């Protein structure tokens, strides 16, 4: 199930859905089955959100065009300007 979330939902969308689930569950008018399903879905989405936050690696790179007009990416170092 978590795999299905992958790529389909942006972090923002996931967070919005999580909020909606929490509010719905807090209202307390769901049946027992619905409550448990909502809880499971909520936990799943919260995990997905956490995962999204740590997905990307910290990287500073600089794009440099070579003589052929091709752009190459290399790590940005102090020598490049800092």
């Amino acid at each position, binding site marked *: 199930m978590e795999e299905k979330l992958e790529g389909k939902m*942006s*972090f*923002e969308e996931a*967070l919005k859905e*999580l*909020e909606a*689930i*929490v509010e719905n*569950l*807090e209202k*307390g008018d*769901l049946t*027992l089955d619905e*409550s*448990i399903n909502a*809880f499971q879905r*909520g*936990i799943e989405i*919260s995990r997905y*959100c*956490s995962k*999204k*936050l*740590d*997905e*990307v*690696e*910290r*990287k*500073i*790179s*600089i*794009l*440099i*065009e070579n003589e052929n007009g091709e*752009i190459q*990416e290399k790590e*940005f170092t102090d020598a*490049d*300007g*800092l």
Partner: protein
Amino acid sequence: MENVLTVTSVNKYIKRIMAEDLILSDLLVKGEISNYKYHYSGHMYFTLKDENSTIKCVMFKSQCSLLKFAPENGMKVIIRGYVSVFERDGQYQLYAQEMQPDGLGSLYTAFEQLKERLRQEGLFDSKYKKPIPFLPRAIGVVTSSTGAVIRDIINITGRRFNNVHIKIFPVAVQGEGAAKQIADAIRKLNSLACVDVIIVARGGGSLEELWAFNEEIVARSIFESKIPVISAVGHETDFTIADFTADLRAPTPSAAAEIVVPEKAVLKSTIEVMRKRLKTALVKCLDQKKAEYEKLSKSSVFRQPYNKVYQERMKLDILNKYMQKAVNSNISKMRSEFSQLTGKLDALSPLAVLSRGYGVVRVKETGKIIRTVSGVKAGDLVEMQISDGSFECNVLNVKKG
């Protein structure tokens, strides 16, 4: 014979005289443009006038191309140039080398003109503004690779969200060719499609220094960008054409860095809060259901299921008792009534009367009881009944009274 000159040599002579004049060879003239013609050759022809006078003017292509703004009729300008003669027509005219709007600077005028033109074309329309991604994976930064701007952006994004990928596209941000470099960088980032958002940034500076961001090619490259563009040029009070065209204007480069990435710590705690609320809500929900169940299971229906039956049976018993009582009392009432009636019956019985010595007389023939003398006549055979039997008699005579 006096010396006779050709028209050409006269005009040549005048031209030479004028060229030698120090004032005419370099002067500043102010006036209002009229009869403006931008010839297809690239030269501009117009008349400069004030209240009393006019002078013909020409500006050649090489100088025209340096103009930031577009001259137009009615515009008040200051022209630097020289006055010379156009020999063919024998007309003197002002050859403009430089021109700038009188009052406002030429850059300012150019800025206003381009802004108006692009606005009318719809480049600033809010319907074209793309949303800025909430959590970009990679951020393209088009700016100088040296200086405070890129350092600020790297530091601030890093502080807010430690694991974000920043791709710097180094460009000149002022001077000759800067605008083209900026526009090319935006286009290349689009064709590479390697970032989720682009920041176009430059630190503060004069209008001239920020000029590249007021150039049309930069505006067009921003407008055409499929990737959302945040402009962050100069200080909070500086507005550039790039700012109007961008999907979002950040007041400063640092502000752009704040806008482009959310604070990771805040997001983490938001998720944590959500998770806690989920758990609390579920526990509460389960408790509530349990309480409902317990309440139901404690209700008298489940506790004493036969209660109702007993109650009904008791009612039935009582009714039964009432019924019996009622029937009994009816019977005894009827019984006493019966004995009363038999008593009455006894009292009225003719047998009782007969036993006291009375008799009943009937006509033998008809069996009719004789109550009065009129019912009988002499000679009739009558039957006398007394208490223990009967006998027959002949009526001898009948007396009344």
